[in-house]
């Protein structure tokens, strides 16, 4: 690469917006783009992440329990960004994440897209319990703590509707374990139980607590419910084997192998209460009109019984939103082949060709045809604006091999893909510019972009922003969209 001083690359202004079951927040961060090494051939990476603005915690405005008030949320965010002194044009990147029960409301998807569109040119919309869990762990600093200490850390993010656990070791995410357990599954007002969401009913029934909406508040019964819920959270960390009730309340599947955990970090609204759980909460456990303080107390006790260390880090309440603002964006390699007219690209479905290392030159066309036909069968490529084909390993990084890959890909493209629909190729090896040049020679008019040094897999979605750092790299966000599931 061309020698540029590492400081040359600049900073990105990133916004994180979390619309959760109970609360909505905004953070604005500065991400420093840095060169990893002195030789100049290493890819640029996001280095220091500084949170510049932490917005106030808003109650998520709802029209009814199934519907988020999109306009009211948009107003809250616009006003927070104004307070932060950040114009939408100044926002380079970021993510809107719709979390917890809110992700399952009827209008979660339009909500996320509208907010992303209004918040800056490359702010992306994401959702999904596993992603939430990982972002919370990154935002809280659990991932960094695991990497620094060389220990295994479970970041347990407990909000109003869900508990999202991500387990990190020194190398990154190990797995996620998510449950329908949260503080707002039970509502309390004027001495009566006003809300009992389905998962709370399930636990109540299983433990013979006989709770029902309209019951007078009975602290002992609600404490028993909180203890039962806390037990499920701990069970999800210790299993398998799992309590059948844990399985019933799990979001997605739970891992089949137990995982040794050195310490637990609690984050999210209820997680923060664990840290702050004091005599005051003991005196008025229904200060938030929900089960939060009781659940926090029960979790604190249950965690102590496991023998795992409970660790506190600086970010708890805003862990997910900080993760969304600071950890969703990745950078491509420094030599890429891009068609500026195509960018930014959003929500491109990814189909992976896997590793081609063991496929002979003569069989490459067949391999690419198979991948492209998978893509066209799964997606209406014209409708979704193109697809991204991921290649884990092209084989030898030789001229002859890349030429064979390009020729085969071009042949498969002309044969089995809609003409003039954008195609993106993502390689893990540093070869995007070479592959792009070779492909361009073989399909001159096709809208084509090739980026590298990113790992993506089938079923994920890819957003690619406009080039930054003097055109040397493009920001990319790899997402798993699971709206409404």
């Amino acid at each position: 690469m061309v020698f540029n001083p590492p400081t040359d690359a600049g900073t990105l202004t990133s916004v994180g917006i979390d619309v959760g079951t109970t609360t909505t927040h905004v953070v604005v961060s500065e991400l420093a783009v840095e060169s990893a090494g002195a030789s100049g051939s290493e890819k640029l990476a996001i280095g220091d992440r500084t949170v510049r603005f932490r917005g106030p915690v808003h109650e998520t405005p709802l029209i009814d329990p199934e519907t988020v008030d999109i306009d009211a949320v948009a107003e809250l965010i616009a006003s927070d960004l104004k307070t932060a002194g950040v114009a939408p044009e100044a926002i380079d990147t970021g993510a809107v994440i719709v979390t917890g029960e809110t992700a399952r409301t009827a209008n979660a998807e339009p909500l996320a897209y509208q907010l992303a569109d209004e918040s800056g040119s490359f702010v992306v919309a994401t959702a999904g319990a596993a992603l939430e869990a990982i972002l919370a762990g990154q935002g809280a600093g659990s991932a960094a703590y695991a990497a620094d200490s060389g220990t295994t850390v479970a970041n347990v993010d407990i909000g109003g509707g869900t508990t999202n656990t991500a387990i990190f070791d020194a190398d990154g995410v190990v797995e996620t374990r998510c449950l329908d357990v949260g503080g707002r599954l039970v509502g309390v007002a004027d001495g009566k139980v006003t809300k009992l969401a389905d998962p709370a009913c399930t636990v109540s029934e299983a433990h013979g607590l006989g709770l029902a909406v309209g019951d007078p508040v009975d602290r002992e019964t609600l404490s028993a419910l909180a203890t039962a819920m806390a037990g499920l959270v701990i069970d999800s960390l210790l299993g398998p084997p799992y309590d059948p009730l844990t399985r019933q309340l799990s979001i997605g599947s739970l891992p089949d192998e137990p995982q040794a955990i050195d310490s637990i970090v609690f984050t999210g609204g209820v997680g923060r209460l664990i840290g702050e759980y004091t005599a005051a909460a003991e005196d008025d456990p229904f200060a938030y009109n929900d089960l939060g303080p009781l659940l926090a107390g029960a979790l604190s006790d249950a965690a102590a019984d496991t023998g795992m260390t409970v660790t506190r880090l600086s970010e708890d309440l805003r862990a997910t939103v900080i993760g969304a603002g600071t950890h969703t964006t990745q950078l491509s390699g420094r030599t890429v082949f891009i068609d500026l007219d195509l960018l930014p690209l959003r929500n491109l479905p990814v189909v992976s060709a896997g590793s081609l290392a063991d496929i002979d030159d003569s069989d490459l066309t067949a391999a690419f045809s198979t991948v492209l036909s998978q893509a066209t069968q799964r997606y209406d490529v014209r409708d979704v604006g193109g697809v991204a084909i991921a290649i884990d390993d092209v084989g030898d990084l030789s001229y002859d091999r890349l030429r064979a890959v390009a020729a085969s890909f071009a042949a498969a493209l002309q044969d089995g893909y809609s003409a003039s629909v954008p195609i993106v190729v993502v390689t893990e090896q540093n070869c995007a510019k070479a592959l792009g040049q070779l492909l361009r020679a073989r399909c001159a008019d096709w809208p084509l972009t090739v980026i590298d040094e990113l790992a993506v897999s089938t079923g994920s979605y890819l957003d690619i922003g406009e080039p930054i750092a003097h055109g040397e790299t493009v920001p990319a966000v790899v997402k798993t969209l699971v709206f409404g599931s």
Partner: protein
Amino acid sequence: MTTTNPPDDHDDRLDRIADRNPSRLGVGRAGSRPRTQTLLEFRSDHGIARDAVQSHVSDALVEEMGLFAIQTLVEDKDAYLARPDKGREIAAETAELLREECQQSPQVQLIVADGLSSTAIEKNIPDLLPILLDGLDQRGLDVGTPIFVTYGRVDVMDAIGEELDAESCLVLIGERPGLATAESLSAYMVYGPERGTPTAKKTVISNIHAGGLPPVEAGAEIVDLIAEMCDKQASGLDLTAADREFAKG
């Protein structure tokens, strides 16, 4: 004598740090000296580095790549190391030969020079050169007769470019080998080559080898840079000045 820190006693974290860096980290010691294994590896790498400097690029490669071979004023390896000035200049007869045998006034004059690592040329040129020529052709740039220079220094491109009246010049040259790799290649480029052009007016891509910037990717990157150089009629700091924000005052 005590042996400390044997490799199998490593902490995982030390392994991770060592894996990220080609340096000899956490290799342990035997008393106050390196372990035998470490010493042998060090000597072996040093031998590879010396070979890279002392060996010659094979005639077969020069022929296979279709390069027109010439030599600088230097007569042997010892003189090459002792007299950098001679490695930047060609004899009057060589200049005459170039004008007779090579294309005059090309937009891009391509030169391959052994420099301080013939190994770098042998390892990288077969993958770099063809994609570079493809790309320059795709951009419609007129490439002159590619030349191979024995005992060449970077600035030999100024002399050759001047003699052939090239608009721009590119030299692919073996870098001084180190103990981490002996096969690293650099590409130096200049717009409007003439003898005595300062280094500040030259653009460089370095660290081209399998463990750095892969040669095939480097070829495509050089194409972009040369196209930009010809477009903006500048190279080196003149080319990047517009991109930089110098603090004023």
